[in-house]
């Protein structure tokens, strides 16, 4: 139940994020979720898109440094303590969260979060065992 996340290396300069996003826009690739991590000299843009293979190809063609990683998209109850419960299950089963971020849209009544685990297989399994909805790539594309 893993989905593909695309990460892009960004030099810290004006207009670079715009260039990347407009590249995707022109190729009719839709961003479903994204986050930016930044340091003083560079940033890493991470995102989930509807057509990951096409996005990778597009970046390669345009000399944008990008790679893919397996992440897990999880439905989390949209109420106080909803996320804390999910994190507790992971913590109890010794799954480490490298980072996480939220989707742009909601999925039914629940919030949709992207988790990057040190071990995506195990992370996904732990959540499924606990009866939490882990989304497949197809469902993301259909959003």
């Amino acid at each position, binding site marked *: 139940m893993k989905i593909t*996340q695309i*990460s892009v*290396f*960004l*030099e810290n300069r004006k207009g670079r994020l715009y260039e990347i996003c407009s590249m995707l826009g022109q190729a009719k690739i839709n961003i479903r979720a994204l986050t930016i*991590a930044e*340091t003083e*000299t*560079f940033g*890493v843009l*991470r995102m989930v898109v509807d057509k990951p293979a096409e996005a990778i190809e597009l970046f*390669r*063609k345009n*000399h*944008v*440094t*990008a*790679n893919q*990683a397996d992440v897990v998209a999880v439905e989390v109850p949209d109420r106080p303590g909803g996320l804390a419960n999910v994190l507790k299950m992971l913590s109890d089963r010794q799954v480490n969260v*490298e*980072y996480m971020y939220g989707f742009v849209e909601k999925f039914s009544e629940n919030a949709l979060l992207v988790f*990057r685990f040190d071990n995506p297989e195990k992370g996904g399994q732990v959540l499924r065992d606990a009866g939490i909805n882990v989304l497949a790539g197809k469902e993301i594309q259909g959003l």
Partner: protein
Amino acid sequence: MIWNEPMETMPLQDLKNLQSERLVKLARYVYDNCPVYKQKFETHGISPSDIRSLDDITKLPFTTKMDMRDNYPYGLFSLPRTQIVEIHVSTGTTGNPTLVGYTRDDVDLWGEVTARCLCCAGAKSDDIIQIAYGYGLFTGGLGFHYGAMKMGLTIIPTSSGQTKRQLKIMQDFKPRILCCTPSYCLYMAEECREMGIDPRSSSWNIGIFGAEPWSERMRAEIEQTWNMLAVDVYGLSEIIGPGVSQECTYKEGLHVFSDVFYPEIIDPETGKPVPDGQPGELVITTLTKQGIPLIRYRTRDIVSITHEPCRCGRTCPRTSKITGRTDDMIVVRGINVFPSQIEHVLLGIEGTQPHYQIVVDRLAHKLDEVEIMVEVDEKMFSDEIKQMKSLEHKIKKEIEAILSIGVTVKLVEPKTIQRSEGKAKRVIDKRQL
């Protein structure tokens, strides 16, 4: 195969006798034909009759790039312009470019030495060669062209640039030999993969690379990437262009064709000879050139030399690869910095590419600062910031350990560093010294 066995495998004593005979003639020739040399000899208190054998060479004055510049364009020529059939120009460090001229015999000599280079690298007379050195004022393209022509190879004179076309020609005509700069060869590998071609499947079996310093690690990278033998060629336009020296397939130093280009290694500070095996500045005397023969020309290239004959049978001396250029060297806070050192570090860190640029700047507080920009490619890139930071840190620490000065490392996007299709620009010195 050895192109010119009598010359290239001559017993050492015979070689020395030949060099002596040629040097004696040369001293007389430049004195009689080139007023600038006549003046230099007189200022130096020496006459051609003082030169009786090779051992007297140290009595002669040096010639420098400054002499070339000061006597631009024809001052250092020993023959009138009408005897010159070809002219080449290289970039000068400052001011005027460096101009050289060849008589018909000089062009013939040039073909002779580049034919020796090609054979040294393993070329056979039925080979196809792709010459991707620039043709034109730059000596690289035409130099190899003349040698390949002399050998009777099939020449594809692609010149430099137009990488996609280079690769298409390689695929269509299947040349076994490639000549270009080593950085361009690595650049072509990137392009090759983008075109969906595996570089290891290329028809190139032999690459003859030169015109810029490169390291053993870069050689390993090229050989691994392209599945080819990569050998080093050395030359400079002042002497003749490519063809001064060349590695054979044993890759144990560059054979200097000393019957025509006599090498000395000196301490650049004192001008005194340094012993075999010790690094020093390479100084060359052109023993047989006619148009613009040079006496004890200071190349500014740092090498060491051995006079041990090679396993390949050639008896001429061999130099190491260039370990630095005295004019590529930058001094930062009293420390000598060679770009090749940075390259060495980058190639030693797994996943990093030798695509870098050194920017030296003098800040308001008068301390020189070195920033090293390193291009990040897919292999180095991670979505986790901590891994990127740790890579940055590792590069910084390793460079600092080699250079003994603090540096800043900046990871940049691919293709942001100017990578001309000829020589890579490695150093940007913004200091007003």
